[in-house]
């Protein structure tokens, strides 16, 4: 057959983030980070405490285009929500795009072009022989299924 499946729910991700933030005193100001896996995308909610002031920031990453395979496919994302968070995320992807041609960030849209991705010879050759049969976000779950190309 040749299948690989990864299913993860948001509770797992959130508990892991909580535990990691709790132990890391370095991430000052960040009180809570919550991730929701929804049909329209991934929603991030951050609770911050800076200079004694509490605030909550939201951001939504929408999936506009999904890749069919990992050799030539494209993943297109859009960022929305709080402008500050949007700018930070866009900035992060902009920095990555300086290092890898596979990433481009423009006007709150992020494009990951797997055709231009070069990681290392092992991973590149693995990506070439795999296709995506399922990539869904629904009811708090992320489900990814991969299959070997014949």
């Amino acid at each position, binding site marked *: *057959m*040749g*299948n*690989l*499946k*990864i*299913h*993860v*729910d948001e*509770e*797992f991700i959130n*508990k*892991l983030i909580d*535990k*990691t933030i709790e*132990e*890391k005193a370095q991430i000052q100001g960040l009180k809570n980070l919550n991730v929701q896996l929804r049909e329209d995308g991934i929603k991030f909610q951050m609770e911050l405490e800076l200079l004694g002031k509490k605030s909550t920031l939201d951001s939504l990453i929408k999936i506009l285009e999904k890749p069919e395979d990992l050799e030539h496919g494209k993943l297109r994302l859009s960022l929305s929500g709080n402008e500050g968070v949007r700018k930070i995320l866009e900035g992060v992807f902009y920095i990555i795009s300086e290092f890898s041609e596979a990433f481009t960030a423009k006007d709150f849209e992020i494009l990951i072009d797997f055709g231009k991705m070069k990681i290392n*010879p*092992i991973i590149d*050759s*693995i990506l070439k*022989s795999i296709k995506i049969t399922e990539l869904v976000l629904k009811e708090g779950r992320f489900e990814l299924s*991969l*299959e*070997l190309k014949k």
Partner: protein
Amino acid sequence: MGELIFELDDDMAKELLIKVLETSKLPFLKNLFKHISSFKFKDNKIIFDILLFSFNLKIKSYPDNVSGVYVFEHNIPVRMLKDQKLPEFIELQDNIIRLKIPSSDILKNIRINEFKIEDGILRIKLGNIN
């Protein structure tokens, strides 16, 4: 529920293993695996036939957290591999292979709820540490 499920079948595992070895610096293993005729997941065992030999690796124990030591029993003649430079996280003894996954801030907070091989599938279920 708070769960991550990872499932890999034997065909995909064989293909990935061959691909990884193709580009590795382990010429002996690379050549050996060109002659692999069967690769199966069954009863907590990885069973693979190469030329006229049948080898197996059996899950003996696994750690509570993702990081830690995974122990497998095997019947691979160790002297065949003694000149190979294995990665540091693999420790090979006569009938035992130990995989040591180093701890990290994230890995130490992930619990292994299930680590099983049955009916052609390797299944790992992960959960949170309270």
